[in-house]
């Protein structure tokens, strides 16, 4: 039924990518030019749609609650549990072992200078500034953006999102805002845990295998750790959280054509959020390096 698929696409873009305002013609860009121009136009269309989704999310998060449309606290807490609390074990696991690896690898080189105790400071700086936020984000991106896209994408295909819209329940307010807020709150928390657990992993291996004295390890770690490092790490993790939530939800809203479409969108969603996380990381690290 070609008429049906067309109209579903129409309602998606109406709900999300703002077709109603004539911003883009999401879907098949048959009007786009030939050759290289087409992917470029497609890219810009996606960019403008995802920006629109972000803008709408912020509107429902920051402005609408003051216009008598309160946030759905229960849904937010459920989502926080889902993406935050349930990600704790895997974040612990990954960061613990990365802490161990980090100390072992740096000690291997620092041994040549007889400066193995600096492995402690290196681990703490690397974890708070870089690896904590990045690891937490990558682990959560795999878990959460896939889950968001698969869940909301299936709802898209089964017309559940359309049904919400027709019941005058705004899909962005009902589905996207709780997920976005849960991510933005929980990912920095997970990052702090990743920092801490990574350092504990480093401490255990550093004091046993590498043979740094326990008090010296702790002292070096505390000396090297600056509040600035932790804060920049947390700032980055907020950005990563936004990327994961937005990409996960956006990819769901553009799902087309049944189960196959959902699978494809889920894959694209994970890959896209990973790439965007790395790019954003590079960008912010440069900014922090130059200006802080």
């Amino acid at each position: 039924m070609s008429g049906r698929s067309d109209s579903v696409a129409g309602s998606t873009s109406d709900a999300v990518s703002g077709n109603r305002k004539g911003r883009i013609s999401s879907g098949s860009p048959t009007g786009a030019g030939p050759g290289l121009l087409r992917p470029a136009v497609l890219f810009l269309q996606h960019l403008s749609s995802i920006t629109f989704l972000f803008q709408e999310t912020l509107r429902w998060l920051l402005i609408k609650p003051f216009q008598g449309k309160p946030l759905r606290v229960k849904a937010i807490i459920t989502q926080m549990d889902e993406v935050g609390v349930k990600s704790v074990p895997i974040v612990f696991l990954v960061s613990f072992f990365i802490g161990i690896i980090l100390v072992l690898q740096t000690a291997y080189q620092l041994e040549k200078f007889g400066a193995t105790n600096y492995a402690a400071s290196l681990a703490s700086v690397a974890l708070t500034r870089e690896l904590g936020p990045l690891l937490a984000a990558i682990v959560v991106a795999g878990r959460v953006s896939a889950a968001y896209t698969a869940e909301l994408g299936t709802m898209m295909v089964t017309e559940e999102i359309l049904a919400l819209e027709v019941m005058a329940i705004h899909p962005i307010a009902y589905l996207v805002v709780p997920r976005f807020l849960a991510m933005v709150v929980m990912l920095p928390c997970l990052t702090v845990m990743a920092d801490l657990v990574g350092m504990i992993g480093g401490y255990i291996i550093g004091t046993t295998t590498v043979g740094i004295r326990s008090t010296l390890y702790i002292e070096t770690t505390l000396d090297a750790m600056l509040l600035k490092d932790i804060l920049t790490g947390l700032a980055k993790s907020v950005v990563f959280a936004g990327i994961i939530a937005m990409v996960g939800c956006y990819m769901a809203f553009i799902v087309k054509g049944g189960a196959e479409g959902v699978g494809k969108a889920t894959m694209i969603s994970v890959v896209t959020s990973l790439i965007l996380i790395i790019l954003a990381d590079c960008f912010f690290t440069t900014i922090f390096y130059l200006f802080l």
Partner: protein
Amino acid sequence: MRSGGVTPPQKTDRPVRRNKGPATSPRRGEIIIRVRNLVKSFDGRVVLNGINLDIERGKITAIMGGSGCGKSTLLRHLIGVLRPDSGEIWVKGKDITKFNESEMEQYRKRFGMLFQGGALLNSLTVKDNIALPLREHTQLDEKIIGMIVKMKLELVGLRDFEHLKPSQLSGGMQKRVALARALALDPEIVFYDEPTSGLDPVVGGVIDQLIMDLSHRLHITSVVVTHDTRSAFKIAHKMVVLYRGKVVAEGTPEQIQRSKDPLVQQFIHGRPDGPIPLRQSSRDYLEDLMDME
């Protein structure tokens, strides 16, 4: 414009009009939805090509047509999900195509919609699904909401199932629950998208009976989009046949049945031969074959 082959009204009390200018008010019943010259195209393909339609208050109007004739698109315009390229949709004296966000929200609270697949939220129980519009749009407390949910479920005969998830129900039961949800806010109008498709004849008959009961007992205006002619003839007060984005015939079921229009006859009897082509290729067959290498 193609003239519908509907025989002129003889002893009917409902006038038959065929896409001719402004509405003359019918003798009985009030027009609640008025569609005028609705045009919509996707990527240059015209899907709705000047639809004119009147829907009477408290009556069951069946919109029929084959796949791809534009009936689903028309329905999506009526519920305000799509905006037309041109044309107007007047609902109770207001043009919904010009509505802003909050007006649309108000409009949507006053109608219910039954989706083809039910479209119940799979993460919620039956009770929460039906309670959702009540919790979102009313200030009623949980006890009252619980009572309303039970009443709506009783209406569709599924009161025992409120604690199950939609995935634990059969297709027909899901549709009945979805109907209960559509009725949660006591709407004036209910839209049905293919209410009987994919159901066995008995369950389909149950849904038909529910639609008729709602119309007769509660005077709810029903708009049924369907290609199930058997069901449409059973329930409808008025039928509208769409073909290629246009209304080709409208009238009471008897008038449609007696219609001399070969297009209408082919559709209602499901004949493979007739003016509706089986093949939908735009190119010449021979030319297309020769082009293969």
